[in-house]
């Protein structure tokens, strides 16, 4: 079955709905009409740019270019993770923890999927590797930032409890264990909710997109299940990674709690 290809005219008709939003804003005095139009314009331009970029990258299809694109995506995601928490670790600690966590989660799960379930030829085919890395990154970003935020805010709250244990001769990793556990939980809960609600409360985007593009629903569902499992793995790795990388930054060779490294 062939996908129904859209013409620019189709999109212009659809854009009338955005204009409708803007009109509602003017009528109700929401003062959002400018923002709505700017956001719609940004969305159009950004997506068109990425579409042409991907068409170009898929056409060239060299491993170096594919890897380069993925690395740029990883760097942007790492920066986002670092920016979310209210507290910041000194000396680029947030950036290092965020980047390490999302990079680890993305590369492990993407390579795992490319080597086992998908097996394109060659395995690093940009058409598979880049979208896959993109989905993994978006989710790993979410899990890592939740986990990092929970750890950094928790360590200030639990400071006296942690130091009381250190003062009694408890090892740093043992004193931090409850906090790390709580942080990883926070990072992993969203994917559990997503998996539980899938198909009942929500029709996940990948599956919906593939059905619209003409794929058999059961085939689309199989893809979605594979992705859910990959996302569960990526979220777990990202949440654990962010919590442990940040915790490592909060101590030193004498197993002290270094809250002075938190701004």
């Amino acid at each position, binding site marked *: 079955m062939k996908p129904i290809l859209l013409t620019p005219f189709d999109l212009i008709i659809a854009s009338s709905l955005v204009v409708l939003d803007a009109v509602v804003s003017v009528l109700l005095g929401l003062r959002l009409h400018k923002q709505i139009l700017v956001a719609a314009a940004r969305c159009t331009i950004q997506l068109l740019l990425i579409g042409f970029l991907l068409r170009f990258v898929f056409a060239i299809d060299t491993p170096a270019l594919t890897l380069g694109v993925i690395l740029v995506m990883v760097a942007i995601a790492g920066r986002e993770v670092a920016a979310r928490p209210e507290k910041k670790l000194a000396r680029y600690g947030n950036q290092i923890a965020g980047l390490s966590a999302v990079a680890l989660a993305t590369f492990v799960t993407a390579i795992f999927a490319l080597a086992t379930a998908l097996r394109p030829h060659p395995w690093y085919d940009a058409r598979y590797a880049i979208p896959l890395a993109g989905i993994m990154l978006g989710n790993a970003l979410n899990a890592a930032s939740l986990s990092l935020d929970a750890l950094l805010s928790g360590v200030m709250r*639990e*400071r*006296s*409890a*942690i*130091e*009381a*244990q*250190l*003062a*009694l*001769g*408890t*090892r740093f990793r043992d*004193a931090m264990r*409850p906090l790390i556990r709580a942080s990883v939980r926070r990072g992993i809960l969203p994917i559990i909710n997503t998996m539980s609600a899938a198909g009942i409360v929500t029709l996940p985007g990948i599956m919906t997109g593939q059905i619209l593009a003409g794929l058999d629903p059961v085939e689309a569902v199989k893809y979605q299940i594979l992705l859910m499992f990959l996302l569960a793995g990526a979220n777990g790795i990202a949440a654990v990674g962010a919590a442990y990388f940040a915790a490592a930054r909060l101590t*030193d060779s*004498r*197993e*002290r*709690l*270094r809250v*002075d490294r938190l701004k």
Partner: protein
Amino acid sequence: MPERLSARGLTGAAGGPFGIALGRGDAMAITGPSGAGKSVLLRMIADLDPHEGAILLDGVDRATIAAPLWRRRVAYLAAEPGWWHDDTAPHFPDRPRTEALMPSLALDPGLLNQPVHRLSTGERMRLAFIRTLLNEPEILLLDEPTGALDPHATALVETLLIERLRAGAALILVTHDMAQASRLGARRFHLEAGTLTPR
């Protein structure tokens, strides 16, 4: 006879360089305005805060002793010690020894079955003191250990401290109570503007 605890050139957020020498059974009381760094000095000795300088325990360099073991032997007790379980009992893995010590501080062993938030400030302080004593540290670094206690409970804490001093421990305490310093036979020091001076 080698000193129990000797520190040279301790420099950190509390100021310094500080030099400290304590023999077996020695006690030292530190006074000073709040914010002068009295707690930080104790935390430096316990190796909880970053600093420079060398410390020896019974002639052994701290750098050769793993940090958790050092803190077990050179024990710091904060003015408001933290708790990490909701219930009191899990903080005391050695229940028989805990219950044996509690009456000597006028604490009912039944308190162990209470959640921590139900305990009064004074009860929490004494229980935290027991928690520290159970490790049998050679050096006690106590930050206003009787600040929240009535005169009776204060006397009980001092009795236990004198017992430890007789057994060979050494003590540094931060206190505002000059009478307490003399009851414990402690040398008095004043910490202000980053310098420690005998009084």
